[in-house]
């Protein structure tokens, strides 16, 4: 297709959006509404996921070792932990370190002043508490890591919060699935709306389309203006939701922090930049794809002349 023709088709598509004024406006409005809901669901899902990920990182597994192990045995376990893909990080805590941590946690600044403590330093009460603190890559992987740790004969006891990890994993899954289903449904609604608008546009120009086909216009020539119209409607529909998320997100986070301070203490909301970074390309691709697909569906029947 010649550049001149492409330009003229694009111009026609733009003109058509304005020619079908009210219908286009209704479509842009409904697509905006769909994308606003999409944006809200997206912000919610992403924040919940980030929240559960944060918690995952704090849900450590403590594997207590049998008495004092040789450096060779510790190195051997360390190597195997490094090789396991389900483990995000681990940390070896010797019995001396365990005692030191305990002291500073329980006694604070007076830890080194007491005689009793000094005596205990020489006879470490936590000498059987050497352990590995292991963090799984996600809450879902925690049980697998526990099973893996159980396979070591040098580990005598494993301490972890099975219920917390399981609950978190299933909550994250639930939010993702429900959010995903809602988003899919909204995409379907948007597609339906845009298809109907273009269908009206195609219907008002059906005479022109049939003449074009009879005088030898190619399918792509006939299709292009409608494709432009659909994409433009989708694109215009994405402007308002983008602006709303851009200006509304920070305000909402601030409001949550003020009104429900306990929530903001519990976890950190994703930044506007992180949200926009993910949402903007989705809005753009979604509006273009839905617009293009809507046009293609609407015009298909009319090309069979």
């Amino acid at each position, binding site marked *: *297709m*010649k550049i*001149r*023709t492409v330009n*003229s088709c694009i111009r026609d598509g733009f003109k058509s959006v304005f020619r079908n004024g009210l219908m286009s406006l209704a479509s842009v409005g409904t697509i905006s509404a769909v994308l606003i809901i999409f944006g809200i669901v997206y912000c919610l899902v992403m924040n919940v996921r980030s929240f559960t990920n944060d918690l995952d990182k704090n849900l450590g597994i403590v594997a207590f070792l049998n008495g004092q192990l040789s450096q060779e045995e510790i190195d051997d376990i360390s190597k195997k932990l490094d090789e396991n893909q389900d483990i995000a990080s681990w940390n070896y805590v010797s019995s001396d370190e365990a005692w030191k941590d305990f002291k500073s946690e329980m006694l604070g600044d007076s830890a080194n002043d007491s005689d009793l403590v000094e005596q205990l330093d020489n006879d470490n009460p936590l000498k059987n508490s050497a352990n590995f603190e292991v963090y799984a890559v996600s809450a879902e992987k925690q049980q697998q890591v526990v099973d893996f740790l159980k396979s070591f004969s040098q580990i005598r006891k494993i301490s972890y919060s099975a219920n917390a990890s399981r609950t978190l994993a299933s909550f994250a899954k639930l939010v993702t699935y429900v959010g995903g289903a809602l988003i899919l449904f909204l995409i379907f609604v948007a597609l339906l709306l845009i298809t109907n608008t273009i269908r009206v546009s195609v219907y008002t120009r059906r*005479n*022109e389309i*049939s*003449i*074009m*086909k*009879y*005088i*030898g*216009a*190619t*399918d792509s*020539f006939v299709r292009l203006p409608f494709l432009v119209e659909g994409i433009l409607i989708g694109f215009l529909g994405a402007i308002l939701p983008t602006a709303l998320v851009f200006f509304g997100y920070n305000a909402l986070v601030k409001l949550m922090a003020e009104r429900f301070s306990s929530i903001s203490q519990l976890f950190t909301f994703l930044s506007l930049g992180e949200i926009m970074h993910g949402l903007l390309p989705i809005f753009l691709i979604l509006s273009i794809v839905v617009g293009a697909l809507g046009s293609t569906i609407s015009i298909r029947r009319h090309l069979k*002349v």
Partner: protein
Amino acid sequence: MIELNHVTKIYEGNVTGVDDVNLRINDGEFVFIVGESGSGKSTLLRLLMRELKPTEGSIIIDGKDITKLRRGKVAALRRNMGIVFQDYRLLPKRTVYENVAFALEVIEVSQRKIRRSVPAALNLVGLSHKSKSMPNEISGGEQQRTAIARAIVNNPSIVIADEPTGNLDPRNSEEIMEVLEAINRRGTTVIVATHDKDIVNEMQKRVIHLVRGVVVRDSETGGYDDED
């Protein structure tokens, strides 16, 4: 040359459009396809335009079997055909000139060629003086002449007209047939489907008579109801 070999078209519900039609139309011929409403005239034309595919048989145009054409190639076939409809099918928001130019714009002809070809086509149909008029400002006959100018502006080798005088009075019908005859004299094959007995009888051209989809008469020259 156009050749139809054992062409049958059966629509959904087992309705026969045309039944075992065998025809040969030479380059530069003027052919009337006659018959009552529902006799298969329009089906035959739609098969030639490749708007329909036959249930059986082959249709060869300039050596190519158009029944085997891929959808993407139909546009190229139609660029070599001018099509005229009973209801003119003009674009109401475009002038006479723009309606004719539209046929060249959609096949991406250069503006220079459009500026040269459109006045020539309008001149041939005798509408040069109406080039700036809108379709609703001219008579039915003039609208049909505009449609003919649009059909021939690309110099097709075949012009297909489906009931071109169906909406016109006898005087305008006569004028339209004169224009089609002038086009035929330039060497263009003209195929006209009609049930207008007067113009067929008047022009004495080749007549193919269809009854219930079957060719019952194919006369070299003659009137509507002549026997072979």
